[in-house]
């Protein structure tokens, strides 16, 4: 991974009331980034010292571009949402270990702001892809997934697709009954991941899940971003693994969530 660098914003758009999409020019991630990896984005406001981890949503290798899609939840993401084309931002990446591209007939399951990293993933997966996207109410990015697989939407308020959560959508659309699913890829809020882990276990399907935790260094040194593990972690020698280094993607059964 290269040093932190100051990259240019080439496109920035609002996707929903609080979700933004930003393309930056960065050869490093464009050449070496993998689905499920992320980058550390730094604030220009100097009162904020720590990087914001944001997943790679898409890569355009030919033009050396990387896309981030993020929700405004606090001061850092608010700052990012106010950036303009040709403004610059410091980034570091690609960081972490992404998804393993395996499975012949897979579920790709995203919840809320966990959806963006699945876009690049969906491009790269071979085999049959059933893409389930869960939202609270407003949907975003769903159209862009359609070119890569069958898209099923759930919304908590029932305004689009199945009313309920992603598991409700899987059930309602009989995705397990009608297919021999051999892998689940998931990213989203912890309660959703917890539910999917159970669901996968019950149905005897392997699952890869992408986790979140607050990060300080983003390079594996500070031990702020750990997740409890079933076995002793090979690096830490305790039941804690570093999400920024060994993750953010883990097999569901390796981690305690």
């Amino acid at each position, binding site marked *: 991974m290269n040093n932190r660098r100051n990259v240019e914003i080439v496109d920035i758009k609002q996707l929903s009331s609080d979700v933004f999409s930003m393309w930056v020019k960065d050869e490093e991630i464009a050449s070496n980034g993998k689905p499920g990896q992320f980058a550390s984005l730094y604030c220009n406001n100097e*009162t904020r010292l*720590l990087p914001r981890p944001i997943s790679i949503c898409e890569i355009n290798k030919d033009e050396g571009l990387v896309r981030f899609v993020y929700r405004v939840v606090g001061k850092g993401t608010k700052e990012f949402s106010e950036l303009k084309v040709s403004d610059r931002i410091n980034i*570091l990446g690609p960081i972490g270990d992404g998804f393993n591209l395996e499975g012949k007939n897979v579920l790709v399951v995203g919840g809320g702001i966990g959806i963006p990293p699945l876009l690049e993933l969906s491009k790269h997966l071979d085999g049959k892809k059933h893409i389930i996207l869960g939202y609270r109410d407003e949907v975003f990015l769903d159209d862009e997934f359609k070119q890569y697989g069958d898209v099923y939407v759930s919304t908590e308020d029932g305004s689009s697709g199945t009313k309920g959560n992603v598991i409700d959508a899987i059930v309602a659309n009989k995705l397990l009954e009608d297919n021999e699913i051999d892998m689940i890829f998931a990213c989203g809020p912890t309660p959703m991941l917890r539910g999917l882990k159970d669901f996968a276990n019950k149905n005897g399907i392997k699952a890869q899940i992408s986790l979140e935790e*607050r990060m300080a260094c983003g390079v594996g040194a500070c031990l702020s*971003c750990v997740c409890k593990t079933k076995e002793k972690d090979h690096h830490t*020698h*305790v039941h804690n693994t570093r999400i920024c280094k060994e993750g953010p993607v883990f097999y569901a059964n390796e981690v305690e969530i």
Partner: protein
Amino acid sequence: MFNNEINMSVNIAGVEWKNPVTTASGTFGSGIEYSDFVDLNALGAVTTKGVSNVPWEGNQTPRIAETTSGMLNAIGLQNPGVDVFIERDLAFLKEFDTNIIVNVCGRTERDYCEVVEKLADNDVDMLEINISCPNVSEGGITFGQNCDSVESITKAVKKYAKQPIIMKLSPNVSNIGDIARAAEAGGADAVSLINTLTGSKIDIHRRKFELANKTGGLSGPAIKPIAIRMVYEVAKAVNIPIIGMGGIMNAEDAIEFILAGASAVAVGTANFTNQRATLEVIAGIYDYMKKYNVKDINELIGCVE
């Protein structure tokens, strides 16, 4: 890059450093992860994350929170224990031409001594004894806030140590000069300061503490003025060398510490913002010396008026 006419090397308790810059414990791992960004040979010393006698799990997450120009951490000294440390981390670090400072933590005096004893015959240049971690319920800061216990734990580890001992002091005290004097009386070869200031942050929307541990240690540029004051007070109080830290983001900050009385400095939180902060600090000190025609860094130590 560096002109031979300018001497940046310092001698800390008998150990020669090629320049006065090290890493602050816990912010640089054992150097392994940062070696992608930083040529470790360029550093005066690498100070490792705290190491205990047995593996420690650390605290629950969230372990960190950002604050205005600072951050709170409550890692809780997670580490793989001294045996793994020696086998893996020390083996890695030995390959570099830099000093190795191992930060030692423990719950009891015995714990500290056990680690110090195990490291005694290893390829370690200095030991930094962390009696100031605010994030563990036993050990850490409980040793560091009282002159008697500082003196006695210093004496205890000195019995087992073959390397010079740096006592790492807590800023959460009424009189840092007294604490430093107690460390000196106990036989400390150097002191380092400041560790983090105990702080907290509340999420007003959830009405919950931001950290699982409720409180954590405040670091970063926010605390620098406190650190500078304490280094200055300790420099007046003791005759052993001081490693200064607390909010160093760039060379100007580092020079402030040196002028206040630090013989060396450590870069901590800055590594999170800028992975190459240590290197920029070293280069910037050099530029400052060149600009003001300072031939020897030792001339700058404590020379504030």
